């Protein structure tokens, strides 16, 4: 694929909840490890401030949002910024699918939290694959 990113990943920026940390860990895993060439991270704080580059990114690319609580700030902010949310993940819903992983910790996730983040990251990566054409994907790194 070209150097241009194709899917925007927007995680929760929450401070006080474990699920927020899970959302960020999953987002980092997607953009740094699983699909680095196909994705880019956009910070919520910049969308809140109306940063032009961030707004342009969400306006031009499909977005996958990862929310840590029911307030769904990431999803709402992408929508308010004129973006299209291709898939909105709520970490609590993901946890319901992987109840064997018990997440704990905010500053630092426990093993269950890291495993839940990994499971979420894999789901996000699958969505990314569905949003971009085959010749745009990251070569042999797909599951």
């Amino acid at each position, binding site marked *: 694929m070209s150097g241009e990113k194709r899917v925007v990943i927007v995680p*929760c920026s929450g*401070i006080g909840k474990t699920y927020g940390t899970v959302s*960020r860990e999953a987002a980092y895993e997607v953009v740094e490890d699983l699909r680095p060439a196909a994705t880019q*991270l*956009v*910070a*919520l704080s910049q969308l*809140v401030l109306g*940063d032009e580059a961030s707004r342009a990114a969400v306006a031009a690319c499909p977005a996958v949002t990862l929310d840590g609580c029911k307030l769904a700030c990431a999803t709402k902010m992408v929508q308010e910024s004129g973006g299209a949310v291709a898939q909105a993940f709520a970490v609590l819903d993901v946890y319901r699918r992987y109840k064997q992983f018990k997440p704990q910790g905010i500053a630092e996730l426990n093993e269950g939290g890291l495993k839940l983040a990994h499971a979420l990251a894999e789901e996000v990566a699958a969505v990314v694959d569905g949003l971009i054409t085959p010749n745009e994907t990251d070569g042999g790194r797909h599951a």
Partner: protein
Amino acid sequence: MPDLPRKKVGIVACSGEEIAEGTVTRLAALRVLEQLRPGDTVTICLPLFLAGGEGDRAFARFYPTIAVDGCGERCAARATERYSGKPAAEVVVTELAAGCGLAGLHGRRRLNEAGQRAVDLTAGRVAELVDELLERKGWDRRRGSFEAEPPAEAPAAPVAATCSCGAGIPVQKVVIDGRTVTLIGLPLIFEQLREAGKAPSDHLARELLETVRIYNPIPADEDETYAMTLLREYAAFWGGKEPAR
């Protein structure tokens, strides 16, 4: 007057996910909230100024707020001022680190040693600012700034500091003279009066008005209308929730 929470400092971190300094703001804020100044501090997620309700947007007017930013873009400070109220103080991690000769800060996902030291530094500075703001009297929640001549203030009520996401400042919409008006803190005021056993009465209408005025602008020529409306709303609240004897 209801004993509303008077002595707390708000902390809003940029939490910028793209850079290591954003991670520093988040971890530093968490350390202040949980370890250094629990009970004296409260936080809210920056996006809630837009994604939340009017109670969330009242945050920086209700609490003198410290904006903690990772970089010179100052997203937390600027967004707080734009959507809620001017921060009472600001900390910028890049400036703080540079001032202390701290370089080589990396690792938005896992901070390196310099990043961890930046968390120590930032959390320490924020805690100092919390103390300064707590000592300073005369926070005007209607204007969202300190008064020049501070009035006497009641002692603080100890309340555990937690993430305020979803809680915000309680607000209530009332219809006054055909207009829908959102009043900050009204549910808390009603609750405190009820707990004090104060039944609705003409005498209470004045107390209600003056208490609500602390947190909300009330046009000078609408005192009577507001007082009657507040009394009516309180009577409805009282009727639905009269305390057990």
